[in-house]
């Protein structure tokens, strides 16, 4: 089995899906000859031809809108949005159309579209190349929202998304796209990782840390530091934000009695609020300390000072200290 980075796993998943299913097509800005600005579709056009991997005009609403039409007529489109920050022109198509087609047609029509998009900071991208806007999408009933954090899960979840019947917004953690430390062996052919299931990234007993995407390695790093201080963190990689694996969240917090939620999006109304509310509603009796959220500040994403904006292991450790000293 080859060792792949996350971006290589995306590329491999697309190629695998296209080899196995003639209905799969991939398109967006610069995905053709250039192979995508991050290389997600590198060599895909060369292997599968321009009919199945093509550049579009510069219109995100056009990309998602036409993907919906293709899906209605039996294709399995992968629509690439070059940066998550540029998804908003397609917001209407996603929220009003993609998410509601099944419901509004009484189940007569469905749109199994996969919208892939790199998200998150840490690449010196400033306000418009760093956003982490998952909460806009998880707030919309009718969408599946996935954020992988490992190469194995990236491929398996993307292949699951392409086999399912639902629209999937697939956020890819671009900051760790090429992280060699995360490269791992990934099976060559078809396999799937189930949507809607969290992954226990590290077992622990004192605090449950809930995270996803680029924050998973950050939390694992914090877990190492905590262990050196005799504190055992359980790290749950949520993987699918919606539908959320509520059972896994609650089981973990019932075991540890403490919860920290970590994401890089602004804290206010961020995804962490939902996890916190779930725990408060369903498992408050098992809590031994307040739930703490570690998140981005409630500001747009800065550029020169992005290191101070992004949660890091030290900030997670501050939360650990707070929770343990309660």
């Amino acid at each position, binding site marked *: 089995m080859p060792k792949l980075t996350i971006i290589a796993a995306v590329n491999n998943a697309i190629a695998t899906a296209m080899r196995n299913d003639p209905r799969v097509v991939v398109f967006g*800005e*610069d995905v*053709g*000859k*250039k*192979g995508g*600005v*991050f290389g997600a579709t590198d060599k895909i056009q060369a292997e599968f031809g321009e009919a199945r991997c093509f*550049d*579009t*005009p*510069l*219109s995100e*609403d*056009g990309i998602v809108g036409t993907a919906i039409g293709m899906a209605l007529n039996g294709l399995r489109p992968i629509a690439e949005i*070059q*940066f998550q*920050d*540029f998804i*908003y*022109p397609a917001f209407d198509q996603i929220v009003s159309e993609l998410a509601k087609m099944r419901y509004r047609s009484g189940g007569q029509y469905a749109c199994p579209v996969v919208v892939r998009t790199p998200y998150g900071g*840490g*690449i*010196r*991208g*400033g*306000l*418009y*190349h760093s956003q982490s806007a998952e909460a806009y999408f998880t707030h919309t009933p009718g969408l599946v929202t996935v954020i992988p954090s490992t190469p194995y899960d990236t491929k398996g979840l993307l292949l699951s998304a392409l086999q399912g019947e639902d629209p999937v917004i697939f956020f890819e953690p*671009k*900051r760790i796209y090429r992280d060699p430390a995360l490269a791992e062996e990934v099976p060559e052919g078809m396999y799937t990782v189930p949507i809607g299931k969290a992954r226990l990234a590290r077992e622990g007993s004192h605090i449950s840390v809930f995270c996803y995407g680029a924050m998973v390695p950050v939390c694992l790093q914090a877990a190492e530091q905590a262990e050196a201080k005799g504190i055992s963190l359980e790290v749950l990689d949520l993987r699918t934000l919606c539908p959320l694996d509520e059972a896994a969240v609650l089981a973990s917090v019932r075991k540890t009695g403490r919860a920290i939620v970590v994401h890089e999006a602004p804290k*206010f109304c961020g995804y962490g609020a939902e996890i916190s509310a779930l725990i408060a509603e369903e498992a408050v009796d098992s809590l031994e300390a307040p739930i703490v959220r570690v998140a981005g*500040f*409630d*500001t*747009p994403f*800065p*550029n*020169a*000072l*992005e*290191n*101070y*904006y*992004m949660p*890091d292991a*030290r*900030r997670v450790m*501050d939360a650990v200290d707070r929770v343990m000293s309660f």
Partner: protein
Amino acid sequence: MTTSAEIAQNPLLAPFLPPPASDEECLRFYRDMVRTRTYDRQMIVLQRQGKIGFTIPCEGEEACHIGAASTFRPEIDWLFPSYRQQGMALHLGVPVEDLVHQMFNNEKDAGSRGRQMPVHFSFVKPARWVSISSPLGTQIPHAVGCARAMQMKGEKGAALVCFGDGSTSTSGFHSGLTFAGVWKAPVVFLCDNNGWAISVPTHKQTASASFAVKGRAYGVPGVVVDGNDVLAVRDAVGAALERARQGGGPTLIEAVTYRIGGHSSSDDPRRYRPEGEVLQWQQRDPLARFETLLGERGLLNSSMKKDLEDRARDEVLAAVDAAAPLPPPPLDSIFEDVLAQQTPRLVRQRAELRSELERHGRSTSADGAFPL
């Protein structure tokens, strides 16, 4: 491609043509084209040296910028640029140093306070250069709304909005032209058609015979101009701006030019376009062409050229020396300018960050490199 002579024949623009450029003006245009190229190349060097994170080169497109800026009237007009018009800033009198401060995202980056990526300038003086946004096409309706406000307030100016060929596919282009046509707003749409939107060539961007012709359906006249001829761009944009100021309504101008470099410092254009195409366009280099013209008119010789180049280089290097050592904006700036009044919540978050740093010292450094 439409030249100055042809624009002079264009019944729409002819009545509004600026007077022919004087020798002195021509030399100033040339000087600023040289300054632009020098600045631009130096930014690439800095990026390659790892001193700045990113840049967007404009080599090959200088004539569009200088030609257009030369007829802009900062006292009354408004500018809504995109990210490839550095030359316009220089010609409008923005000090090179102010550009370089933004490129370094340092404490003197007044127009983004270290928040925006390099090249995303914002100025109020010497011209109303409205803050550049990365999301493409968004500025097009802004210019139209600003123009509408000028109409309503009885102001005499016009709005000039710049965007690329790719950006004509955005909904911002469509709504901007739709509204401008209906309102007869005093706005000039300047589309720099440089052949490419990153790796997507114009024939994959539109099936239309030109970008200029798109205006017709919106009731906005369209004009194609040779974007590598500084005087032709000046005539076309100058006449369109004056037509707008005098109540004649909007114009769409397509300046045909070419992006000699990559899309940005992170792009390798050899992956998707033939080298021959670049060489072909280098034959039409806007600086070389203007040099020939000025030489023929006896306005420029090789020692004057060298002198201008040396001075431009000194100017840029001095600006880099001034900007490079400066620290980033203060930490508190993260929490400022979100709303007019800082919320108590942000005051609290600011305090949290301060105390975190008191306990831990500096934050870990970023690891990523910008890929696009």
